[in-house]
């Protein structure tokens, strides 16, 4: 679900800084003016272990966060939505956007000595597309893939059955990264387990995985092919990077504060001020791109088949106050379903739909919900205005979203709307949700490319095929999201995606809530820790001082 990362540090440092740190209340990057020194190690406390390390199979963020250091991609993306050479030194795209020809960099080898060539590209893409691989995410990034043709050892052509502009952003993700053909032939079924079988061309090799305890990566001494614009070209500075798996928030923070971890991921907002107060620590904060955390209003299910009722819900929740209270001011409220750090974000939506309970009440009156029952809820024809918003199964609730939901429930009660939140098992949640039985559902999805809007609002993406939980069927939105996927012209794409964002917000198909935010606690001995546009950390440029 994560998209793209960049290493274009020199070229885009200023842009990154303005995007990532604007309005963050003095958070710091760990960029440093000192001279990098090779050697040493860093320990990174992470909150979850991947269920599966195979990038071609699994969709978890943490799989890509770790795998990114082990595999490289054809191209790299910059925050402005442009693409730059990495394992491909150049490429041509046919005008119909159905055929992408890449000229591969020379001298690149996998860490098992196998050369990286056109056959390796074909072996990897074919594996991802094969249903037997049971890919839960990477295969969808290949979209209408029809095959890869090896033109010669250094040239490949990837073909699609229809125009597919999202391929370049997809090709820049770790999910479409490359394993050595030798390991694919011998160990394809063992890649999920991680460890040395995961052979890539990346700056680190995967030394070992101790289940539920740690992941150790070791520097690849032969590495000299980072993406164009990287801070440095040679091998990584660190000898090893150890990911420590500490799911308990207080334990992760304690490990950081007691110097047993150099970096802690998923810093709970409540702990940010304490970490910031420690002179030896800093907090790095970055908005994640993609679909922000939003509530989707099912446009086909009564009473939400009336746009006035949907609009009333959109105006009736006090997002500013609720998000600030629950997340201690660390997360930004959202105005659009697309994150401000995704290309094509429409900033014109800011402040266009502020909290207005009086207006919400008037809309409900107009829609005929004028009666009141004994408990103060609105009624129409003797029926109470009730909305069903199932609570996601406990194991997938993150970031206290259940608490935030309670605040929204209370807000809506004040304007006479009852929201019920039944707790369901995941199978029932997914099955009944796909059948359109609920009025509301919530989700966030991190991906750099604004094509994510097609996954959420194109009518072909209605569940179970996609994530269009609004069950929106709008001919314009369909056309715009398809047009956006059929051009590589940044300005034209942005124009299409701005129209999509405006339409889905004014039609109240969605209530954007907050921008998902990466919060890292970092010891000041760690330098040049890069956060890419995805909120992923990259260790190629990282160096440490003081042992």
């Amino acid at each position, binding site marked *: 679900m994560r998209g793209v990362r960049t290493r274009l540090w020199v070229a885009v440092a200023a842009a990154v800084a303005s995007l990532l740190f604007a309005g963050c209340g003095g958070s710091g990057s760990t960029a440093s003016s000192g001279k990098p020194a090779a050697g040493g190690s860093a320990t990174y406390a992470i909150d979850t272990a991947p269920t599966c390390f195979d990038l071609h199979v699994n969709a978890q963020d943490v799989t890509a966060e770790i795998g990114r250091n082990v595999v490289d991609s054809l191209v790299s993306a910059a925050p402005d939505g442009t693409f730059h050479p990495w394992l491909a030194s150049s490429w041509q795209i046919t005008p119909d956007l159905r055929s992408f020809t890449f000229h591969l960099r020379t001298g690149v080898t996998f860490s098992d000595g196998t050369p990286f060539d056109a056959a390796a590209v074909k072996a990897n893409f074919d594996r991802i597309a094969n249903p037997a691989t049971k890919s*839960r995410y990477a295969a969808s990034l290949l979209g209408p893939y029809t095959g890869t043709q090896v033109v010669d050892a250094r040239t490949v052509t990837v073909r699609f059955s229809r125009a597919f502009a999202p391929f370049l952003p997809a090709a820049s993700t770790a999910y479409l990264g490359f394993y050595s053909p030798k390991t694919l032939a011998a160990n394809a079924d063992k890649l*999920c387990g991680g460890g040395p079988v995961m052979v890539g061309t990346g700056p680190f090799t995967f030394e070992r995985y101790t289940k539920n*305890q740690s992941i150790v990566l070791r520097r690849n001494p032969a590495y000299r092919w980072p993406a164009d614009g990287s801070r440095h070209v040679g091998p990584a500075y660190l000898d090893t990077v150890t990911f420590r798996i500490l799911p308990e928030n207080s*334990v992760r923070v304690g490990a950081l504060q007691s110097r047993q971890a150099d970096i802690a991921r998923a810093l709970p907002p409540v702990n940010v001020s304490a970490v910031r107060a420690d002179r030896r620590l800093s907090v790095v904060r970055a908005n994640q791109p993609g679909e922000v955390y939003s509530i989707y209003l099912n446009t086909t299910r009564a009473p939400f088949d009336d746009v006035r009722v949907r609009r009333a819900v959109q105006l009736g929740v006090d997002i500013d106050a609720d998000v600030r209270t629950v997340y201690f001011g660390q997360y930004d409220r959202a105005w659009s379903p697309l994150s401000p750090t995704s290309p094509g974000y429409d900033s014109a939506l800011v402040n266009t739909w502020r909290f207005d309970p009086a207006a919400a009440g008037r809309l409900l009156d107009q829609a005929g919900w004028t009666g009141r029952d004994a408990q103060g809820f609105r009624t129409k024809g003797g029926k109470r205005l009730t909305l069903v918003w199932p609570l996601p199964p406990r*194991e997938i609730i993150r970031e206290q979203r259940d608490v935030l939901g309670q605040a929204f429930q209370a807000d809506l009660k004040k304007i006479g709307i009852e929201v019920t939140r039944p707790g369901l098992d*995941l*199978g029932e949640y*997914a*099955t009944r949700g796909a059948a359109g039985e609920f009025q509301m559902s919530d989700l966030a999805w991190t991906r750099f490319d604004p094509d994510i809007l097609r996954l959420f609002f194109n009518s072909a993406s209605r569940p179970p095929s996609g994530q269009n939980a609004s069950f929106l069927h709008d001919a314009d939105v369909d056309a715009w999201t398809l047009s956006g996927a059929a051009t590589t012209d940044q300005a034209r794409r942005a124009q299409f995606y701005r129209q999509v964002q405006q339409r889905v917000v004014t039609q109240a198909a969605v209530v954007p809530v907050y921008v998902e935010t990466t919060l890292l606690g970092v010891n000041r001995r760690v330098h040049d820790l890069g956060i890419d546009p995805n909120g992923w950390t990259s260790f190629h440029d990282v160096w440490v001082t003081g042992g």
Partner: protein
Amino acid sequence: MATLERSAPPPAGPGLVPAAPTGRRSAGQSARLVLRAVVHRLVAAAVVVLGAATLAFLGLALLPGDPVARLLGPVTTASPAVRAQIRHDYLFDRPVAVQYLHYLDSLVHLRMGESYQLQQPVSALLADALGPTAQLAGAALALALVGALVVAVATAGRRRGWRAAATVVELVAVSTPSFWLGIVLLTIFSFHFRIFPVAGADSVSSLVLPAITLALPVGGVLSQVLREGLETALAEPFVITARARGLRESAVRMRHAVRHAALPLVTLTGWLTGTLLGGAVPVETVFGRPGVGALVLDAVLSRDMPVVMAVVVFSALLFVVLSTLVDLVYLAVDPRLRTVAVAV
């Protein structure tokens, strides 16, 4: 499974006056009786394991909703082709009865299948997890036993103040959630004093805090049971005999009374196994240790059914084996039971 019927104890304790078995049977008769008991025990064990396996299967099979959707979770873009592949590979497209028979067949052949999420053989995952958990459980059990023994021997039948204090400590130990206790211990001894590492299972020092966390509630219960037994034993006539022979109080307690009081502890083994296995779940999570607890927690959260079922069956087996061992230990410790046991 067979349980031991304990007849009313003879007036004197074991070890002092050996109970004379009445009416010895011939060797052939005895062998047949032992064989019958063993067969009986094996059948009972099979029934328990089959029951556990069936309940686990039914519990999961009867969950509402699409198993593929449950397996994939909400955040996926798996295509219909991939979904069909999963449905086919994991037999979700077959009737539940067929799935059940297939499951039983693999169980009988000791094939535990492949994890849905990790795509690795469940047997390998379980084998990897057993070592660290056995270490943790063993260390915790040793700590709990030693602690309970010291506290119980020191306080049984003593002055009211000491006894009351020990009771309060035991109650607190039993009722403290190990999740919370683990975090408190970490905060004090790892984050503040930095004596022990925060997490992992790669050194002896990393075992100390988790073992204490897991041992405390167990030790609290053992200590209570042991003191109760000690106090009963100390009131027995053989203690008076021992004292009359001029033994020191410590010798009376350690050499005679403890042996007597230890019997109920053996009965608790089943409960202990459950507590140590179940208790390992939060402890392994808090301390970031590998092990069975962490494995089963992940499996439940990621709806990894083959792993969940394997752990259920494994636990059932473990209970059966342990309770058989307990019965054998009884026979060894208490000669009065030997004739009764084979007649079950």
